[in-house]
């Protein structure tokens, strides 16, 4: 099933842009254009004449789009999706997923809704993946830090790895801090003292 809607995705992060455009194409919207970093958004809107623009809520280029919505000809005016109050639940879902949409050619709400639902779902997935990635990186760097601290304590006190870890853990507990933070402080001091 193909649906003829001309959709413009504005997303400087290439991986994320690909995710979104894949999600749209999998669901039958084949006419998707992506513009990224340093693109002239006003020029892109004029040349592609999209029906719908999807853009990250936090993208600074939105300020330029907002201005176009004031100054363009009525025919090609991008209008932010939530201006008309038609679907507040959908609007709140979009805001929390971090996606905003601009309707250009007075497209009917029925035709926007499925696109937005797809985009919201994919934005949520990307958010979740990013959060997980950050957590995983953090866990890895914490573990490395704790390993280095353990090594320092083992050498300085001539104790076993288990004993070193227990010492770090009791210190952290008595100070109400995380083991990784105590380890970080120790490693920093050791680096400073050479």
């Amino acid at each position, binding site marked *: 099933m193909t649906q003829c809607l001309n959709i413009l995705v504005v997303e400087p992060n290439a991986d994320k842009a690909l995710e979104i455009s894949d999600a749209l194409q999998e669901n039958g919207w084949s006419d998707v254009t992506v513009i990224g970093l340093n693109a*002239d958004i006003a020029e892109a809107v004029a040349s592609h004449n999209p029906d719908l623009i999807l853009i990250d809520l*936090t993208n600074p280029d939105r*300020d330029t*789009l907002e*201005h176009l919505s004031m100054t363009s000809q009525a025919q090609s005016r991008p209008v932010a999706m939530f201006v008309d109050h038609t679907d507040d639940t959908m*609007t*709140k879902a979009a*805001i929390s997923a971090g996606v905003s949409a601009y309707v250009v050619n007075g497209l009917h709400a029925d035709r926007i809704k499925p696109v937005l639902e797809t985009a919201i779902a994919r934005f949520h997935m990307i958010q979740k993946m990013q959060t997980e990635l950050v957590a995983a990186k953090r866990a890895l760097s914490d573990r490395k830090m704790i390993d280095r601290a353990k090594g320092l304590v083992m050498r300085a006190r001539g104790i076993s790895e288990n004993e070193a870890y227990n010492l770090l853990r009791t210190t952290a507990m008595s100070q109400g801090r995380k083991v990784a933070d105590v380890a970080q402080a120790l490693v920093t001091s050791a680096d400073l003292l050479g």
Partner: protein
Amino acid sequence: MMSSVTCGYLPLVDSAPLIIAKDLLFATQEGLDLTLVKQPSWSAIRDHLAFGQLDFAHLLSPMPIAMSSGQSGYPVQIDALMVLALNGTVIGVSTDMANRMAAQGWAPYFDNPRATSAAVLAGGQQTLRIGVPFPFSMHRLLVDYWLRQDPAFANDRVEIISVPPPQMSQALRNGRIDMFCVGEPWGSVAVQDSGAVLVLPTSAIWNCVPEKVLGARRNWVTQNPATCHAMVRAVYRAARWLEQPQNVPLAVEILASSKHLDLPDHAIEPALTGQIRPRSGADPLRVDRFMVFHNGAANFPWRSQASWISAQLGVPDQSQCFRSDIYRAALTPIGVDIPNASAKVEGVLSEETPVTNPKGALILAPDNFYDGAAFDIATETTPKE
């Protein structure tokens, strides 16, 4: 008990009162656990405020009016609880354009709006592309107000486009725009990186521009009066601290090292000291009242300022958005001198003027327009002849 509040801001020099309120613990003293949330754009801060993801926000002063009148984003009543900063923005042109202006006999003034608009519009029929940060900004309203008065002005001579401030310098360098109006530090950055020539501070057009305000949703304000009063007091004390000349060097240091701003000290200093370098290699010029945080009742949200903005935007009067009543209720108990009136005739004070109020004499800052205009709500509401 501390109450937790969030305040969104854009990393511009005029967000300083919020950062000082946080970092020097003025907010803590008022029982507020204040979290500052950096925002990437005016559209984003507007939406996050409108949908309740922020309690307070650093807003361009036309934004509460545009949002309340349904002109910008999701229509919701937004109030301005106080003015955060006056002035502080500059108009600059590209090197090419400065050369064209010089060929028309323009001397590098920094205080002559008439001669400058004549030179900007003289010679040539091409459309000038002018970058401003957001459609609902004093930048756009003042550029429009200023150029329209020039005899050579025509609608098709000027195209105003929105460019996020951090991209302004690059847009000038790439030739996307010929001219800009932007808040510091981005004017100085364009001078340094893109050969921009600064031609006017906007204070030369109106010397009392309400540039940024502290905004909040009206529903939320009604439900949380004590929190709003505490926030107004905290930011008021921060603004007063910022304006003491002896604190300026320390303020530059605090702002430069603050994680909130992420700007180097040489980008912050010109705005706080009023020493503006109009072109690369030139000596800095001292601009009086370049960015005002406090003096002359600067923080008072005059309803007449909101009326002026409403009139420029062509929307019904939204003077009730500027909450002089809340400002008064928050600050009267701590003995602050506050004007008795909530509105004034804008544009008639040409020097610092004492006014009487219950406490004695309060000094109001000058508020002239360069064309000598006076704006009076009372006469504006009736049709002009």
